């Protein structure tokens, strides 16, 4: 059984900046020393709505990037889509607002010991944590190629500086409004063959992760995916964010995506059984 991230801490952390980037908000938070403990894939759980809020649960957000050399001390960047009540509240908070957060939480993307070719696949704003990951993989000598997909162009998150760490970046939209028309999973088999990809890293909606797993299984490529399952606590005590995962002996365990994830081995997740009776 996995245990909670040993570096997890609860702290009060001020917002350094909050900028709108297309359909998303880029929120930078001063988290001090905690920044150094955050790894690509980890997430943060933030209390939302203020003291008199009727929202009693924390909201989990992927940590897209951390900086430890910034002039304000250690910072954490989040890319947030103002969809629900909690994320709308967070996106409306300005510089100086102090957030109650718990970080770093969950598992991190595993980094190959050898400098192998890797493919990063992001769906919608799920691409955000992939840029920090790309920097790390690039610094280890890996060839990094990236695929980004969304239903429409305005939902693609691809910051200009993000392109620096990747060898290539291709964009796919279902309506063809940006990049190529089609699904982000369409070109994966060809890329695996052409570039001899050893590891696929993915982050985005569950159907996309399931579709990538099918391809990675077929080509016998390692698939590390960051899952998205709704959570009440983020720290492993509520048992709501479970996913069916295959054990070594072939049996199934309902594992918590906040403790055993969000980064999981895609080939072990029983995607067809998500939401089914065990």
């Amino acid at each position, binding site marked *: *059984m996995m*245990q*909670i991230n*040993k570096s*997890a801490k*609860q702290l009060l952390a001020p917002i350094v900046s909050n900028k709108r980037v297309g359909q998303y908000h880029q929120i930078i938070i001063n988290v001090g020393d905690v920044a150094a403990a955050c790894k690509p894939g980890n997430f943060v759980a933030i*209390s939302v709505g203020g003291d008199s809020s*009727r*929202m*009693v*649960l*924390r909201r989990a957000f992927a940590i897209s990037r951390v900086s430890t050399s910034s002039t304000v001390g250690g910072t954490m960047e989040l890319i947030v889509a103002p969809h629900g009540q909690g994320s709308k509240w967070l996106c409306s908070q300005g510089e100086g607002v102090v957030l*109650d957060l*718990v970080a770093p939480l969950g598992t991190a993307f595993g980094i190959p010991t050898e400098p192998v070719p890797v493919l990063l696949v992001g769906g919608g704003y799920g691409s955000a944590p992939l840029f920090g990951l790309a920097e790390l993989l690039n610094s280890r000598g890996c060839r990094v190629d990236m695929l980004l997909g969304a239903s429409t162009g305005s939902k693609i998150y691809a910051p200009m500086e993000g392109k620096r760490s990747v060898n290539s970046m291709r964009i796919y939209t279902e309506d063809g409004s940006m990049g190529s028309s089609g699904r982000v999973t369409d070109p994966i088999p060809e890329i695996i063959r052409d570039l001899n990809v050893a590891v696929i890293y993915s982050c985005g909606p569950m159907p996309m992760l399931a579709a990538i797993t099918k391809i990675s299984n077929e080509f016998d490529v390692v698939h590390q995916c960051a899952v998205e*399952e*709704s*959570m*009440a*606590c983020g*720290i*492993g*005590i*509520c*048992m*709501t*964010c*479970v*996913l*069916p995962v295959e054990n070594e002996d072939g049996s*199934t*365990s*309902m594992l918590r995506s906040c*403790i055993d994830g969000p980064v999981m081995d895609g080939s072990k997740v029983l995607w067809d059984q*998500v*939401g*089914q*009776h*065990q």
Partner: protein
Amino acid sequence: MTALDFSTTIGNAWFPAPTFTASGCASSGRELAQFFPLRDMGGVVTKSVMSKARPGRPTPRMAETPSGMLNSIGLQGPGIDAFLAKDVPFLIDQKARIIVSIAGETVEEYSTLARKLRSVSGISAIEVNISCPNVESRGQVFATDLETSKRVIDGVRRTIGGELPIIAKLSPDVTDLVAIARGVVDAGADGLALINTVLGMVINVDTMRPHLGGITGGLSGPAIRPIAVRAIYQVHAALPNTPILGMGGVSSGKDALEMILAGASGISIGTASFGNPTAIMSIQSELKQLLTDRGFTSLKQAVGYAHRPEQAQ
């Protein structure tokens, strides 16, 4: 100024503080131990354990509601043997005081679980969670039926002997809670845990189907607190000598004090820990301050204080 005596007792079990986790809201205790020493609260009430390992219900298992949440976990757990081998030793190692919560599908299963716990050292009390479907009675929840509730508690009492305190956890979804409380106390319960979650449901208006995988779920959080206060007040009025572990949406020291004044000897914190991992610690220090501010020198003086006659101070 004399120091506040913050201790409480349930049956023959003594706790240095009246603050506990709520069963099913602290997993094995390992996760909260990352945020504060478990021995600093009154005790850990473990997740209700059953005879065998259970996968629980399908997702979605959760829906946030105004000032609360619905959950439908379905008692996912490792089963009693793995629980006793792994979780209990960890809690003992942390010097936490332990209340083991048990759940069964038959009257017999509760007794079987009690038999396994009888010889385990380091346990302060047993919570009997009777808000489970009785497979021998078309899935009717034990806690909604006086006779089966009594049979469960009687079976556990006979198996466990006279030593370990038994706390019966009752459901508020009944017509006459006092009758059930009286019944389980007559059958051998030393204390009562009030209240379990309130049955609720959410329908997703986009899919136009029930949101939860389990269709219905248990409502918890501040939304149910007035129901809990009412339940504690009514039961304490009828059974003033039976200790009550109060719970249902406690998220501040003020909320905890409200339940103590209604008649609770201890407080369990559940949903508040989901929103704030250190909620139990802040509730504890706020409660101490509130009791001191009101001139109480012990927690016990405040238990049921709202029941005092009109002319009293």
